[in-house]
């Protein structure tokens, strides 16, 4: 009898402990899910945007963007001192980081313009396939429309965040808040089908060649311009739906990443063009900020007016 009583008591005690543990655990889990009361910021930072932040992110002792760019260009990567970070899931270089500014460390072997096919001139005179441009000779370039930058033109313009994730490299642009999702396939994996519609940024497929991520981009919509075309002084460097880009992404050390691409476009270029090699320095941040691109209606109206005036004034330029 005594033994049974003890046993019952022990069971009760154990159950109590278990129930208490359960209650405590649920309480803890609730507490961990508890969100602190939110007090909104008292004052909005007036006119805050990513360009303002660029002034704030200059490394100590660096006065200007130009100086930061020069330092990045002159930098000698040191993988012993700054070991290349590697991902825990496949041991490949981890590109994750926020980078700025971009510095050209090797010029293109030949200028892009020298490779344009003469018979593409008429097409280029007309502004290419960028339907929706009012007058490309004015200030109406694809960038103006908040269209996503092509891999070559502009996607490397401002502060950029790269993210390595299992099976992906992500490119998050702070300026414009646009992004590229680059699937990475392994040596033995089948390539994912690309049923996507032709697009400004194309369809990307990456694979590793040693520690270099090689990304093939096809399926473009023919609208992006290559290079920094500045009409009306220069013809737009148009692309076509035949464009194919092979990019090489590398991480020489923990401080920088480097990027180079080869562009083929049989309808526009006589031969493949090799881009400059660009290098970017890593910043002590792990997120870019929201900075959306808006086609301001008022500016749009003024722009349309300007374009019309330009067209009227200049008549047929060239």
């Amino acid at each position, binding site marked *: 009898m005594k033994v049974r009583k003890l046993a019952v008591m022990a069971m009760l005690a154990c159950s109590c402990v278990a129930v208490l543990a359960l209650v405590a655990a649920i309480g803890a889990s609730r507490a961990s*899910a508890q969100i602190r009361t*939110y007090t909104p910021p008292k004052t909005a930072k007036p006119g805050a945007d990513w360009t303002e932040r660029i002034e704030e992110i200059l490394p100590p002792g660096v006065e200007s963007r130009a100086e930061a760019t020069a330092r990045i260009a002159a930098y000698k990567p040191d993988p012993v001192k700054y070991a290349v970070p590697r991902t825990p*899931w496949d041991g490949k270089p981890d590109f994750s980081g926020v980078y700025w500014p971009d510095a050209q460390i090797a010029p293109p072997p030949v200028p892009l313009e020298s490779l344009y096919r003469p018979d593409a001139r008429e097409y280029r005179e007309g502004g290419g396939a960028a339907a929706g441009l009012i007058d490309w000779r004015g200030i109406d370039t694809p960038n103006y429309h908040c269209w996503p930058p092509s891999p070559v033109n502009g996607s490397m313009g401002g502060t950029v965040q790269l993210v390595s994730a299992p099976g992906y490299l992500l490119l998050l642009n702070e300026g414009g808040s646009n992004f590229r999702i680059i699937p990475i396939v392994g040596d033995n994996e089948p390539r994912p089908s690309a049923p996507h519609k032709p697009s400004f940024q194309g369809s990307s497929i990456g694979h590793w060649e040693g520690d270099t991520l090689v990304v093939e981009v096809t399926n473009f919509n023919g609208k992006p311009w290559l290079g920094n075309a500045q009409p009306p002084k220069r013809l737009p460097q148009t692309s076509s739906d035949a464009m194919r880009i092979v990019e090489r992404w590398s991480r020489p050390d923990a401080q920088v990443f480097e990027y180079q691409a080869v562009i083929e476009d049989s309808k526009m270029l006589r031969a493949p063009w090799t881009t400059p090699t660009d290098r970017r320095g890593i910043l002590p941040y792990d997120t870019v900020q929201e900075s959306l691109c808006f086609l301001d209606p008022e500016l749009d109206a003024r722009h349309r007016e300007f374009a019309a005036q330009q067209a009227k004034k200049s008549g047929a330029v060239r």
Partner: protein
Amino acid sequence: MSRRAMAIVAAVVVGAALLVGMRVFVNGSGATGSAAKGTVAFSAKTAWGEPNLTGVWRASTLGAGSGRDTFNLAKLEGLYTAEARTRMNGLSANDDPTMRCTPPGFPRAAMLGHPIQIIQRPGFAFVFTQAYPVFRIVPTTGRPHTSAKYLFPTHLGDSTARWDGDTLVVDVISFNGEGWLAGPQDKPTNASTGVWLTSDALHVVERWRRVDAETLEYQARVEDPKTLTMPWETPTVVFKRQAVDRIEEVICRPEDGPATYLARLGS
């Protein structure tokens, strides 16, 4: 073995079973399995042991109108303050920020019926939307929000998250008060204006949970003391996995108007 010892063993077993049960309850069922279809592999946990939310996901279009309310919007409508109602009476569909291609924040983005993509790495989840393409960066370590020095109001707000068992609980603050909580076509009652204002006091707590290989659930709690008298809860939105490795690139052009734009997105 004495009866006493047996009883103690039994009690310990009962206690352990309770504890194990609780662990399962807290951590979820942890379904395992490979991809049911398509080329996208699926595992319940990431390589670093977190619940795996990675994938391209799509839910049904949700909203209210024609006597149907699939997003608890009648309830939301009743929560607006008198002051907010007065302001909303002076606005119309043309004031909806998506008319200017402004991306709607969540939870409205979960109503659209268009694909989203989630990609994870240790410490972060990234949420991409196909309609009104934009990305959200969601730290998953439970770290504090962006420091006051860099925090400024935005359309999508500032997110930080922690795992509550197998549920990712995302806390979103620092909205700019321009977004709407639903669209102008959403009219749950005869008195509805189709205007759904927010303020810079908007605070959203989202719960993202991978239910199984094919299913992701989303639910949000919305509070906005400047426009709503009480917090509002969305229903659970059920996203189904799409057998693709990335969402499409879609361009919003204001001149198309949202109806044309959304129609052009197709399926």
